[in-house]
């Protein structure tokens, strides 16, 4: 079980309020991702749930029980740190067994569980090595192994993949998602990478300056961002945001259109523009097009390999059904 409820949770360091009173419910078995730019308070929020930071006000409940004043050791949560935080003086086996040893399990049970976790994480051959003798990916797996052996109520991940190289990161992302499917345990995952958020989450919590900007499934956030911040943060490349007369034409202060919802034509369209830089990814091509009457270049996504010359004149047409409208406060107009 792992239902976590935050009730008006507030955190201040001295006079600086990093998290204003905040409510959030994380259902049992959910994969929740906290995402936001650095300094948005996502890691602090995770540490509050973990118990590594004291809550200034409000209440944290785990499975209905007040856990606000419960020390981290007694909350029944497991955490995977960005730096892995392995015990350098212990072998991989001892690292993974440490939480079991602390829980006072007998040796045979410890060995059984460590062997099972090592099997799942492909660490069986490395059990007698020290963390210093492992690669980054292997260390991360040891950290995950240490978390899963004790069968916690929930897993907390604090930017676990940011120290890995890009290729490894994609692999570990899949492994963690796979783990969630199999264990069906609540997972709370902190990242600044919106791709990780979109690909892994059941529910994304977008944070800015300690405030929750929006909570929803990845596609909810993609389809209907509640405000300009979420609109700009979710999706890659970023949504094009257009103000001025063009927006006024749609009865809005700002309109947003995603790069994948603009079509390009050499002959005719809504907006006339000049092609700037092109980015060829093979599967997609991104064009940066400067249009008349629109500030800043627009990003356009075209599937496959398409070549347009630098300086060439093109016509862009947004898909009218995919235009997001925002009012003068930056909030979505339904």
């Amino acid at each position, binding site marked *: 079980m792992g239902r976590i409820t935050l009730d008006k949770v507030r955190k201040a360091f001295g006079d600086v309020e990093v998290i204003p009173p905040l409510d959030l419910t994380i259902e049992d078995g959910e994969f929740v991702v906290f995402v936001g730019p650095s300094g948005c308070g996502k890691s602090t929020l995770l540490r509050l749930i973990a118990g*590594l930071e004291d809550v200034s006000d409000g209440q944290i409940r785990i499975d209905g029980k007040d856990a606000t004043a419960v020390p981290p050791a007694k909350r029944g949560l497991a955490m995977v740190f960005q730096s892995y*935080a392995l*015990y350098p003086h212990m072998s991989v086996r001892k690292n993974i067994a440490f939480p079991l040893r602390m829980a006072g399990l007998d040796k045979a049970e410890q060995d059984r569980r460590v062997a099972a976790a090592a099997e799942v994480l492909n660490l069986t051959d490395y059990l007698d090595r020290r963390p210093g003798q492992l690669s980054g990916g292997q260390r991360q797996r040891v950290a995950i192994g240490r978390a899963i052996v004790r069968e916690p109520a929930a897993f907390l991940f604090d930017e676990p993949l940011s120290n890995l190289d890009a290729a490894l990161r994609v692999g570990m992302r899949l492994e963690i998602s796979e783990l969630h499917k199999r264990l069906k345990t609540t997972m709370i995952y902190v990242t600044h990478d919106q791709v990780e958020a979109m690909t892994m989450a059941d529910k994304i919590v977008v944070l800015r300056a300690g405030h929750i900007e929006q909570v929803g499934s990845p596609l909810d956030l993609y389809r209907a961002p509640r405000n300009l911040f979420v609109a700009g943060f979710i999706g890659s490349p970023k949504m094009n945001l257009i103000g001025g007369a063009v927006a006024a034409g749609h009865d809005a202060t700002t309109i947003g259109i995603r790069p994948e919802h603009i079509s390009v034509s050499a002959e005719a369209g809504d907006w006339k523009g000049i092609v700037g830089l092109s980015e060829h990814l093979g599967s997609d091509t991104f064009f940066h097009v400067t249009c008349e009457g629109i500030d800043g270049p627009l990003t356009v996504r075209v599937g496959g390999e398409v070549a347009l010359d630098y300086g060439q004149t093109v016509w862009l047409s947004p898909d009218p059904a995919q235009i997001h409208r925002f009012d003068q406060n930056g909030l979505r107009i339904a």
Partner: protein
Amino acid sequence: MARAVTTRRKIATTVLAWAIGLLIFFPIFWTILTSFKTEAQAINNPPLFWGFDFTLENYAVVQERSDYMRFLWNSVIIAGGSTILGILVAVPAAWSMAFVPSRRTKDILLWMLSTKMLPAVGVLYPISLIFVEFNLLDTRGGLILVLMLINLPIIVWMLYTYFREIPAEILEAARMDGATLKAEILYVLTPMAIPGIASTLLLNFILAWNEAFWTLNLTAASAAPLTAFIASYSSPEGLFFAKLSAASTMAIAPILILGWFSQKQLVRGLTFGAVK
């Protein structure tokens, strides 16, 4: 050209280092040398570097006249006891300063260190009174306590600098893994800080071993360590210089050998964790 300059500089610094080393070592060397001379030759003018009659008589006399082993044993107990007791007190203190610092932590550390700037004789009277009151005069327990307190600021400082090198996340991981505070300090912090703790133990053992002010003032016979053993051979007229030298050599030999075998740890200790 550049290479030649470097080599010349290397030679110069090596020679200089040896010169300084020999200069510092000279008094010890002279003491050891004198301990093998006769009393007459020991005070000969000009001083004799060679050509004296090599004798072990001084050692024989010293050994006969006083019970070296008893002093040695007292030194071991007092230096060892005060160091171990100090570590036990300092580990939790350094833990809290390194990992849960408050706004006052730096001030407290400086204040602790500032007590080392006070001349010891300034508190001789109050401490003597306390010793009399609690019947601690000339007891090993009393000396262990005093030397522990005297060296505690250094022990806390050293451990604090070592602990600061340990990432806090690892201790947080232990907490998340269900470790109590005791388990966290015992199974995670201490094993990771073993090199630092070893240097601290060593340096403070040496400091306590050499401590003379309190050991001389607060002991008489039964708890007297090697410092008192040396002092018992010094006389205002400078007589029995050879015997004093023999006693001194016997007193410093154990710590000299210990220091020789643990040079690496010691250097680390003296640099207060600045060198990794």
